[in-house]
């Protein structure tokens, strides 16, 4: 695909920024396939406490019991062969705080992806995960002074059990779905963040996830706790080189926003197109708290991701802003869930998808307002743009609303490129591809603006590149 010709429906994708990998040289390798010994091996390498091993083994049992949800999801999930995946790979080196200390090949990987520049430019802290383990982690000194904790999951559970254990696995229990159970059994890496009461982290914290090895599954686990009145923005990016065999990324992200706290979680997903990206993300918002998921899915072969907010406290607010670009051979199955459990809670879902060539974009959503909650409001908008005649889009929303004081509004529309717009631009000298690219950028522009500036510029560029060769 990368050599893509310009025939209609074929894309010339630019994956050059992420499509490279270095020779594999791992000190710890759990081998291929999944069983209780693999789980014990991971737990032992990480030096975990017995309760955590028990948690992992219970999750493995649950994973084996559960079936793939192919009665509603893509049948492609059955192509995943869990016996051929490597579940833990690590270089066995300590996480570095100084960029100069990072091993040369890992450093070169992240330097090619621009991580250090971004950190210097605008980040409050950064964590870079290379396969199973975090390779580099750094945070600005003043935040440490304020008591902000930003570590990887292993360190978080070891050093701060009193903070993290309370919420770990509570927002997304191991029984939630097959892939959260898998993650719970073999998780490694991911960020643990705690922002103390009233602390407002002004610059974003960032994590970067990188898969380097073939047939490898990355299972990071992230838990973010914003204490009362705290605020933070967290951003994650991800890439992988393109290998011949499929790669699995199955993360679990749990957010806890205590009274009056605000969490904004931004994701730009640009995995290579043979990655199965099956992620469970959920946040719990207490009284007056706000959780906002800003999600952009450009890469992967198949993505299944439905960020959720459980609005547990009165007047809590949840928001999901989602952009999905499904190119040839890709299926972006994304959406959002809003569970209103308390009075006066509000939520907003904005989703835009673009399907190119035979790409398929699906929106799956749930808005649930229980009968005991009063004066809840939700607004959902899903717009889909189909570029080529063989593109596909689906919308599968579910709305459950009880009581006369709650209100829900849902609307979805599907359209094609406006021929008049294209004609207008072409008349003024733009090539067809440029005109289409500009039109697509215009379609998603409202949502791209919601991303932090550095990301929105990057997003626009990515969309332009993805559109290259889609028409002609």
């Amino acid at each position, binding site marked *: 695909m990368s050599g893509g010709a310009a025939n209609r429906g074929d894309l010339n994708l630019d994956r050059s920024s992420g499509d490279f990998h270095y020779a594999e040289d791992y000190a710890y390798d759990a081998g291929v396939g999944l069983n209780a010994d693999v789980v014990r091996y991971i737990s032992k390498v990480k030096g975990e406490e017995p309760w955590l091993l028990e948690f992992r083994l219970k999750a493995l049992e649950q994973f084996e019991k559960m079936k793939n949800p192919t009665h509603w999801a893509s049948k492609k999930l059955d192509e995943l062969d869990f016996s051929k995946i490597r579940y833990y790979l690590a270089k066995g080196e300590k996480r570095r705080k100084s960029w100069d200390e990072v091993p040369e090949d890992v450093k070169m990987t992240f330097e090619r992806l621009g991580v250090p520049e971004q950190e210097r430019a605008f980040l409050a802290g950064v964590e870079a995960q290379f396969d199973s383990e975090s390779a580099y982690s750094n945070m600005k000194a003043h935040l440490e002074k304020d008591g902000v904790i930003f570590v990887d999951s292993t360190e978080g559970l070891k050093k701060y059990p009193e903070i993290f254990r309370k919420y770990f696995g509570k927002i997304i229990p191991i029984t939630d779905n097959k892939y959260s159970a898998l993650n719970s059994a073999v998780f490694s890496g991911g960020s643990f963040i705690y922002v103390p009461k009233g602390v407002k982290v002004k610059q974003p914290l960032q994590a970067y996830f990188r898969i380097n090895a073939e047939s490898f599954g990355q299972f990071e686990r992230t838990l973010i706790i914003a204490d009362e009145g705290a605020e933070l923005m967290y951003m994650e990016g991800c890439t992988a080189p393109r290998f011949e065999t499929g790669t699995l990324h199955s993360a679990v992200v749990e957010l806890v926003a205590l009274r009056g706290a605000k969490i904004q979680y931004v994701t730009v997903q640009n995995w290579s197109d043979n990655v199965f990206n099956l992620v469970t993300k959920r946040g719990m918002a207490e009284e007056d708290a706000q959780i906002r998921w800003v999600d952009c899915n450009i890469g992967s072969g198949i993505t299944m991701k439905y960020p959720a907010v459980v609005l547990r406290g009165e007047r809590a607010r949840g928001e999901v802003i989602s952009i999905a670009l499904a190119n040839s051979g890709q299926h972006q199955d994304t959406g959002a869930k809003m569970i209103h459990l308390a009075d006066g809670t509000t939520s907003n879902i904005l989703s835009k998808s673009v399907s190119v060539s035979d790409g398929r974009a699906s929106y799956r959503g749930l808005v649930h307002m229980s009968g005991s909650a009063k004066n809840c409001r939700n607004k959902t908008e899903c717009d*889909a743009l189909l570029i080529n005649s063989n593109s*596909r889009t689906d919308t599968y929303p*579910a*709305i459950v609303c009880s009581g006369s004081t709650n209100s829900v509004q849902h*609307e979805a*529309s599907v359209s*094609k490129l406006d021929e008049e717009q294209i004609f207008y631009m072409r008349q003024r000298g733009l090539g067809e591809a440029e005109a289409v690219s500009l039109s697509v950028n215009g379609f998603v522009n409202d949502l791209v603006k919601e991303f932090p500036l550095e990301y929105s510029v990057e997003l626009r560029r990515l969309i332009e590149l993805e559109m290259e060769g889609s028409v002609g």
Partner: protein
Amino acid sequence: MSEGLLKRISDAAKAKFQDIPFPSRKDEYWRFADLEAWSVDSLLPYFAGRPTEEGCNGAFEDLEFDEGGGGGFATLFDGQLVDADVPRGAEIYSAGAAAEKFPEAVEKFHSMRGGKFDALNSTRPDAGILIRVGDGESAELNLKIISKLPVSIAGVCVLLGRGSRLALRKTNLAFGGSFSALKCGYFLAEGSKLELASLKYSSKYALCYEREDFDLGAGADVADAVALAAEGHSRQERNFALAQNARADSRIFALAESDAVRDIRTSQIHAEGGAQSNVEVRAALGGLAGLAFTGLIRVGERAVKTRSYQSCRSLMLSDTAKSQASPILEISCNDVACSHGCTVSKPSDEQMFYMMQRGLGLGDAESLIVRGFAETSFERISDMELVEKWLGRLFA
């Protein structure tokens, strides 16, 4: 020959009914349904001929069956044609006669893909009628379908010839203690037109399953309006398959106050280009009433220039009412305009205030708003007298 055909259909349907499991949550189209009402435990008393005693002898007081209007009439009582005045331009056949004269149509009617309860319906292919309007003909017909047996099965197959027109007014009544399984199939040939107005009324102790399939030929047109005043559990399926340049407009209004779930499932399948479809579901839910709506718009790869819309609006009249909706879009063609909308809200405070300021009581104001909410569902029905009569009955 007809007996042979009907027996073959019945045998195949019996086998199918046994093979297909009872609905489960895994089935996208039964996702929100009250599965308990459709479980084997719930249905067994009906099949054993011992449905609940309560309401078995209930009558529909104040409900005159004579809807008036022009044209002929036909009455189906538990699937048997008991009375008919065939209107000019139309022909009515019993199931046996239809199998003799139109074997292909009868076979097609029973071979429509469906679930367990469609198979149940086809186990009795001898119960029902076939209505035919010849090429270029025009007819008006009042059809009453009454269910009183513990398991009451009926099938209505309607064949419209090229360029023909049928105005069909349909009243369904299901008495307490009856499980009514009704299947209607409308086959519209090129350029034909169907105006269908249906009033469905069932006792609190009845269980109603109804499936209506519309197979629209090129340029055919359907204007469909349904008023649901079912007190018991009911499931309503309306499926539209549209050929080139066909048009379908379906509006369903459900008024519910009892604790049963009104389960509505619709589909708009566009396989060919240039067709237009619109489905609007409106429900006014009071008491413990529930609405479970699943709607599907599917546009195939060749269906260019399709215009397809779907909406579901629930008006919540009580704190205990519940609305569940799943409007689905599956679009595989880019030159289309499709959308769906779904809202759940209570009557507007401003509207209520306006009317109460002008002297209306709370109940009257609310009733007026609900009536206004319902009226748009009947906009495309040309017989205004009938619409007024039905609305008067619904809001009596």
